[in-house]
């Protein structure tokens, strides 16, 4: 069966293609009376907080009033009142959570219990509505979809508009009419929340489009970048993968996906004290194609000539990790410091067998690593930022246990440990190195 590697390749490609097709529908999700709802993002102009509307008589009870949206007067509909759902009590001053919806010709504001996030799904996964799913009349539901273990009822924005435009039935106006003049104030959206809302959306998009999680690991970089971005593009949202990619360009560490230059190898030497014992253990979780593993192995071997080096490298991307033992380099990217371990293979320069014996490449989930020895060094550049927050925290617990005191942790250029108490940053211009406190 000589075709095996290509059969595996094909299987991987088919899966990736299917996944790429999938996310073609985006919705803003929110809650009403404890249930999850969604609405097509194309219908949403923006997220807003409403307070102190101007009450207008002779409108249906669910019309809370009108609102001045930067010069345009729009109606504000309370969806909970419209659908006869319970309305949580709020004091007069507390702003309500809402969305500004729009069609070709209309704009209306709707009030909900809380706004959740933007979710990307496959339109194929949307199922037709069934009365059993919702508390609300089925005519307002365009479909239902399951995502991430939650069931979302997708509202038909157009039907909401039609209902919202209905003339009031005088017999249904509540007996207690508040004096219009008492509430006749025109209110502007809170400026304070503006950047928060834009940032929130961007965080969401970075995660959805690129798997990048904004967290304490990279928040410093993110906030700076956000400022830059808003100035450059005047607060524009990230709407597609290309924009997300551009946002992230200043995040990516230097010299990724290639062998480290000589200066980096020296940085390792100067950041580490010569360890005791004869064996140096290094962990390279999520090493991808393997460049980081080869680089750190070389750095350690040069720094500690007489010690035995063992690099434990792993990744869950089967294709990349399977090719790692036979990685072929670009001749021009090989600093001369590597020469003694490079041999010419039939496809180009690769590492000699002697060198490769130092590295164990495993198809493995790094978070399952309970039986590894204690490490003198861990290299994971730009890895944490592409894990979700729960995984990041689990990694840090693992690192606490796994790295010896005085051991080093090498993160991406724009990353830092979550808990700075245990780590001291090593002064180095090339790599971002933290030493574990003794």
């Amino acid at each position: 069966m000589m075709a095996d590697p290509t059969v595996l390749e094909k299987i991987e490609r088919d899966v990736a293609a299917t996944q790429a097709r999938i996310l073609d529908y985006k919705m803003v999700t929110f809650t009403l009376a404890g249930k999850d709802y969604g609405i097509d993002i194309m219908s949403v102009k923006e997220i807003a907080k409403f307070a102190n509307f101007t009450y207008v008589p002779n409108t249906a009870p669910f019309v809370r009033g009108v609102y001045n949206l930067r010069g345009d007067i729009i109606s504000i509909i309370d969806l909970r009142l419209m659908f006869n759902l319970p309305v949580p009590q709020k004091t007069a001053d507390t702003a309500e959570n809402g969305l500004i919806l729009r069609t070709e010709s209309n704009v209306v504001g709707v009030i909900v219990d809380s706004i959740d996030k933007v979710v990307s799904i496959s339109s194929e996964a949307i199922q037709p509505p069934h009365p059993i799913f919702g508390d609300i009349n089925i005519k307002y539901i365009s479909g239902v979809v399951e995502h991430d273990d939650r069931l979302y009822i997708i509202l038909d924005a157009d039907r909401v508009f039609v209902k919202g435009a209905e003339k009031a039935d005088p017999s249904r106006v509540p007996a207690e009419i508040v004096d219009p003049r008492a509430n006749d104030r025109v209110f502007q959206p809170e400026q304070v929340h503006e950047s928060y809302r834009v940032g929130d959306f961007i965080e969401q998009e970075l995660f959805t489009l690129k798997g990048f999680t904004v967290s304490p690991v990279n928040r410093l970089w993110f906030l700076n970048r956000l400022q830059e971005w808003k100035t450059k593009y005047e607060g524009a949202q990230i709407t597609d993968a290309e924009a997300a990619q551009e946002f992230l360009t200043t995040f990516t560490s230097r010299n990724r996906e290639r062998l480290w230059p000589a200066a980096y190898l020296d940085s390792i030497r100067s950041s580490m004290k010569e360890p005791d014992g004869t064996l140096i253990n290094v962990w390279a979780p999520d090493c991808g194609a393997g460049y980081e593993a080869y680089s750190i192995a070389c750095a350690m071997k040069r720094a500690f000539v007489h010690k035995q080096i063992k690099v434990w490298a792993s990744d869950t991307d089967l294709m990349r990790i399977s090719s790692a033992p036979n990685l072929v380099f670009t001749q021009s990217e090989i600093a001369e410091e590597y020469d003694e371990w490079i041999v010419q293979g039939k496809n180009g320069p690769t590492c000699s067998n002697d060198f490769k014996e130092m590295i164990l490449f495993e198809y493995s989930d790094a978070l399952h690593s309970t039986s590894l020895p204690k490490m003198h060094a861990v290299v994971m550049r730009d890895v944490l930022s592409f894990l979700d927050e729960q995984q990041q925290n689990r990694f840090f617990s693992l690192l606490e246990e796994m790295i010896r005191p005085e051991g080093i942790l090498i993160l991406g250029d724009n990353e830092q440990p979550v808990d700075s108490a245990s780590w001291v940053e090593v002064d180095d211009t090339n790599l971002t190195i933290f030493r574990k406190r003794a």
Partner: protein
Amino acid sequence: MRVEYINPFVESAYNVLKEVLQCEVNRGELSLKSTSMPVLGVAAIVGLAGDVEGRVLFDMSRDTAIKVASAMLESMDMEAITELNDMGRATITELANMITGQAVTKLHNLNFKFDLTPPAIFTGDNMEVSNPDVEALIVPIELPMGKIEINVAVRERT
């Protein structure tokens, strides 16, 4: 699991099943599991020793086991079985042995010294297999008779 170990198991499973069952054999996507895994109903386990410690588990439903064993028996002019009797169990065990044996031979040729220990077969409902500390590589195989999941968990002997 060390990347070099993967292909020998994947190829041997495919080769032996194709030869022995003479039917369509489809491989699913590989994956990793670390928590306790429910067993489909019949589990044939072959131990591994040598450069590593661990085991290979062949997991299938009772129904699939009966069909696979019957196919093997019939191709040798023996009678098919209708329930998983001694002959059925012995046949599935033999299959597990053959696949693991071929993988071990391929690994030998790559300079990895593995050894097999005699197989055991377990049948039951609601069984679970768990190996604390060791991650398992899952190789799903689709046959006309049903699914066989090959579950390889090995750890380098340090």
